[in-house]
């Protein structure tokens, strides 16, 4: 037996209370883990954004189209290297719930604008040259079990072909990955020309135009030049960096970071009060036993440490189980959410932050009862020895 035995025995002397406290801490860390995984997914777009890439959309919002002619006109702006237009396809595979994030792009310029996309050379060429070809990201290909050479029907929940059909037959000519794991590969690209020529409505327009520049330090000036080019036209533009565009896109869902901070903060504040109060009560119930330990010769600092370890142990048991469950749940959910949130999952930063929270929770909830325990006066606590 040692002090750790006493700490453990004291913590679990009332099993129901210990289990309920553990569950409440577990839930707080489960919430933290799941929301952290969500935040990672939402922040991926801004983290993976390139410095030299701009995005031009309609000034009203990105769902309002830009005329086809803008492609050439933007190319004329000084400092612009590549102009890669794209349209939102709104695809699904077989059933509407099988969402497929898909864009109609000009393959050559798009691949040039996104050098982080890694293609096998023969597949890259096949994609560029094949009118009905599609290039599929590795994550999406894995999700649906697609491979090069397959022909798939991709339905659109936005567009219709002139023959009334909403399905585009696509040949999977390439499967691409990303160079360093920071850029999502959960989408599909099809040929803009193939898409555009068959449209019943909305032809000759794009939803956004990705632009790479010769020199990132000129981005502000180039953005201004592009937007001035189309000022007072029926389709005015708004040009920003890719990071700003992605952040603005995510902000449509609200200030995710702030919401998560408040939810996590509220969960931890509640847990702090519950665990802190219960720890104080639990130690008060043991005043007599603490007085006996002091009578036997246990010093006040040693008793302080033992109570503090008790709070830390409780925090770590609940916290680690909660974090573990969050990691498992995130892993399970990531496959289902791959189409929407490709980076849904916990990172080592999340885990280390959670451990720091566990230490803080243990210390904060343990300090007061430990202080009370340390200050127990033997003669008062025992009435008499």
């Amino acid at each position, binding site marked *: *037996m*040692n*002090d750790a*035995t*006493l700490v453990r*025995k*004291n913590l679990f*002397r009332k099993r129901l209370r210990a289990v309920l406290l553990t569950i409440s801490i577990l839930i707080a860390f489960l919430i933290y883990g799941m929301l952290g995984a969500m935040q990672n997914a939402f922040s991926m777009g801004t983290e993976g954004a390139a410095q030299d890439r701009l995005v031009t959309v309609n000034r009203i919002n990105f769902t309002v189209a830009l005329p086809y002619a803008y492609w050439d006109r933007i190319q004329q702006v000084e400092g612009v290297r590549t102009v890669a237009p794209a349209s939102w396809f709104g695809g699904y595979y077989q059933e509407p719930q099988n969402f497929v994030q898909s864009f109609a792009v000009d393959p050559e310029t798009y691949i040039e604008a996104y050098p982080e996309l890694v293609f096998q050379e023969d597949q890259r060429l096949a994609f560029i040259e094949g009118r009905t070809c599609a290039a599929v990201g590795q994550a999406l290909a894995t999700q649906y079990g697609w491979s090069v050479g397959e022909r798939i029907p991709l339905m659109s929940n936005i567009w219709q072909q002139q023959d009334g059909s909403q399905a585009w037959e696509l040949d999977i000519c390439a499967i691409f990955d990303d160079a360093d794991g920071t850029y999502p590969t959960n989408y599909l690209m099809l040929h803009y020309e193939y898409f555009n020529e068959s449209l019943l409505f909305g032809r000759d327009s794009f939803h956004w135009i990705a632009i790479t520049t010769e020199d990132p330090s000129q981005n502000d000036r180039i953005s201004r030049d592009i937007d001035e080019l189309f000022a007072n036209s029926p389709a005015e533009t708004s040009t920003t960096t890719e990071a700003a565009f992605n952040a603005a896109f995510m902000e449509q869902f609200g200030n995710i970071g702030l919401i998560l901070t408040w939810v996590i903060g509220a969960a931890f504040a509640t847990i702090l009060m519950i665990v802190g109060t219960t720890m104080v009560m639990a130690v008060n119930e043991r005043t*007599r*036993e603490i007085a*006996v*330990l*002091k*009578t*036997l*010769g*246990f*010093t*006040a*600092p040693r008793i302080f440490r033992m109570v503090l370890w008790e709070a830390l142990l409780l925090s770590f048991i609940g916290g680690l189980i909660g974090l573990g469950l969050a990691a498992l749940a995130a892993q399970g959910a990531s496959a289902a959410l791959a189409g929407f949130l490709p980076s849904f999952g916990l990172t080592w930063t999340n885990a280390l932050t959670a451990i720091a929270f566990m230490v803080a929770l243990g210390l904060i909830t343990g300090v007061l009862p430990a202080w009370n325990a340390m200050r127990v006066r*033997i*003669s008062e606590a*025992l009435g*008499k*020895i």
Partner: protein
Amino acid sequence: MNATSPLYELKDLSKRYTRGKETVTIFDALDMTINTGDFIAIMGPSGSGKTTLLNLLGGIDRPSSGEVLFEGQRIDNLSQGKLAKWRAANAGFIFQFYNLMPTLTAAQNVELPLLLTSLSGKARKDRVKTALEIVGMGERARHRPGQLSGGQQQRVAIARAIVADPKVLLADEPTGDLDRTTADEILETLQLLNAEMGKTIIMVTHDPAAASHAKRELHLNKGRFEEKGKA
């Protein structure tokens, strides 16, 4: 230290409490010597200061004035930390209500004072086993306090008090919660520890029958000791 050398010397000892604006004197200018090997019963009416005196002897409380010397060294002016170490090394405590840890087995309760020593795990186990056998509880080592009778719990408490081989045992109404037969068994055990192991025992009690097991009976009344002679 031989059997008649002074273990405790109380010099001009006073203890006063303040209750609101009133100062209550428990005892004043008390002098007493307790020798090694004594078995003293301290008796007296409620509020006479018996337990306060035991607290002072056990380094749990401090006098308002005067000195408490243990083996010639003052203990009343030691810091809290040093007093805790002094208690661990020199004093064993026996309580009226046993005060065993309910979550620990009998053996673990007895082992508690040994956690404050540098003994190895095996040496601690050996000591615990011996202490439990001395009080006749060797067979109940794995039982928790809730599984033991009052008398058995008090035996475990005595084992806890002697396991670190202290020089003095301080007992506060050790039989106050027990029936006569069990109380006599406990008192005989204390007598045995005094006679066979030379433990100095200071026992506070209301019970004249319990006091009769001691070598000396001191009656504390109105802040003064009155010693009753014993055959």
